[in-house]
């Protein structure tokens, strides 16, 4: 089975072949890595390559996985072949989301800095969310026009919730 895995903005084509007995051959952009991956505890993969061992804590996310290795968290986008094919046909949900301002932090909307129809610049603050006694201003990633705002001041919002949709310039 093949996957497209995105790490730090770089897309990798990854193929996984199970060799049995918790052994795998994982081919990343044509380079093969043989490894042993067992699951001693829920959510943990013990990865052995050669004589080296790592413990990887895997939490599945909406678009892939959040993997903690040696105390560092790595966010990875994971798309499988079928999703990839659907995306190529314009049917999947795997497109970028540069045009949505969202919060990774659950909280409460305390201020809207723009309204629908407003033109915004990249980096311009558009909405303020409060959590743990701290206000956080969220910014537009790219210039465009605000197409819709599905939240109102006072709303409690979940982590990952879309807050402001922006129709990018020139699209």
């Amino acid at each position, binding site marked *: *089975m093949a*996957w497209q*895995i995105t*790490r*730090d903005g770089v897309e*990798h084509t*990854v193929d*996984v072949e*199970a060799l049995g007995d918790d052994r*795998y051959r*994982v081919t*990343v952009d044509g380079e093969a*890595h043989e*490894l042993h*991956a067992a*699951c001693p*505890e*829920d*959510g*943990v*993969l013990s*990865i052995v*390559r050669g004589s080296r061992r*790592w*413990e*990887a*804590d*895997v*939490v*599945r*996310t*909406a678009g*892939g*996985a*959040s*993997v*903690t*290795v*040696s*105390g*560092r*968290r*790595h966010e*990875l986008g*994971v798309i*499988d072949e079928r999703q990839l094919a659907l995306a190529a046909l314009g049917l999947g949900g795997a497109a970028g989301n540069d045009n949505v301002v969202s919060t*990774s*932090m*659950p*909280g*409460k909307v305390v201020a809207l800095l723009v309204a629908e129809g407003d033109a915004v610049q990249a980096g311009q603050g558009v909405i303020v969310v409060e*959590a*743990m*006694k*701290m206000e*956080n201003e969220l910014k537009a990633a790219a210039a465009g026009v605000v197409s819709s705002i599905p939240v109102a001041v006072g709303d409690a919002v979940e*982590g990952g919730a879309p807050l402001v949709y922006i129709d990018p310039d020139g699209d």
Partner: protein
Amino acid sequence: MSGAPPFKKVLVANRGEIALRVMRGCRELGIEPVAVYSEADAQAPHVRAASEAHCIGPAASAESYLRGDVILDVALRSGCEAIHPGYGFLSENAGFVRQVVDAGLAFVGPPPEAMEVMGDKVSARRAMMAAGVPVVPGTADPLESDDEAVRVAAEIGYPVMLKASAGGGGKGMRKVDDPSGIVSALRGARSEARNAFGDDRVYVEKFVVNPRHVEVQIFSDAQGNHLHLFERDCSIQRRHQKLVEETPCPVLSPETRAAMTAVATQAAAAIDYRGAGTVEFLYGADGSFYFLEMNTRLQVEHPITEMVVGVDLVQAQLLTAAGLPLPWGQDDLQQRGHAIEVRLCAEDPDDGFRPAPGRIESLRLPTGPWVRVDGAFYPGYDVPIHYDPMMAKLIVWGRTRDDAIGRMRRALGELVITGVRTNASFYRAVMDHPAFQSGRYDTGYVAAYLDDLMADHHDDDALVALLAAAVDAHRAQEERARRVAPSGGGGGSRWASAGRLAQVGR
């Protein structure tokens, strides 16, 4: 243990790690702790740790943890003999203390009068000057004239700082290095203050060069004993928030330590203090030190003192609140070894340390020799958005400072928290950082080295993360295939049945 406990039942008017810390002290003395909680905290760790718990209102602190009247009512109804406030919330509220005492209960803390004196900057400064405690030299009152400025600055010695009386936020502030610059600096500061605040009054204060934040733990009992438990260095701060604390202070000379602790004890005696308190000082690179403020409560960083001096401060609070004398005298107290604490917060150091509440997926805590975790979390716990992001403190002890740093690196290496982001990786960087290892740092440390501390080079780990994600995706798909064809029976893999993974409908 030996003899009856000081109280039978104590209400812990707090939440989070400090509530658990206090409850542990209670249980160790044979006291039954009673928890209170807001509606958002029904499954909070401090509630789970209690065998009796009462809801006191909605999530907002003002409607729950700050409701002294409701809390006092719960204490009376549940038969508590005392209230321990922890830190924050009601811990420095003299009005609440009076209500508690009037209701016939003991308050685990100082008398309200001592709290009030120290609660106001001006009265605190005045009381400390009267008690012979050094305060930052300066006028406090606005300067009447250029001549006065020149005269006072010469008295207190350069460098000095001009500050706007109406001020704040750095406006109207000018550092002056020598007499030649003072008149023009005064003009500039006045003009800036007038523009910013509509008030051009300024005053002059000694500028403390490369200051460290060094504080002294003091303890007093109802019998009039006033002891100190040496110092803590809390100079690793970000925006006045302490991040790393250690004791002993790595640069304090024995003479300065003796002088500083003597002054702190003097301060406690001067205000008829009782219980645990902390006298904070600004410690200059030239060896001078000045009173900053006094915290009339248990401090977040009290565990490092406990580890090095070998006393239980919470138990001592409970004993002295019951009117018993301190279980140790000044001569029984010595510093042994070195302790370091870091504050683990649900926040993202890669994104400006913004708070990051959420559900903890997995949690593996370091254990073994001289590693202490004072925390309030568990796997599956939803760190709420309503309160402080600090989830836990990680405390280590070592025979030497180097030993302690080595142990903290080891402990941070064992720690795993997933689901919420934490600042643990920041502390790894601090422990590896030469300026921290040398011990020669000041309160400007984090600002000066933030870029160093955020740098990240772990190519090997990044590849492993990618491989793990790939294998996990493969296993998830295999599992889905197996579930569709239900031939396997009961022998499903543990992985497949993992609760926290099954929750995400990939």
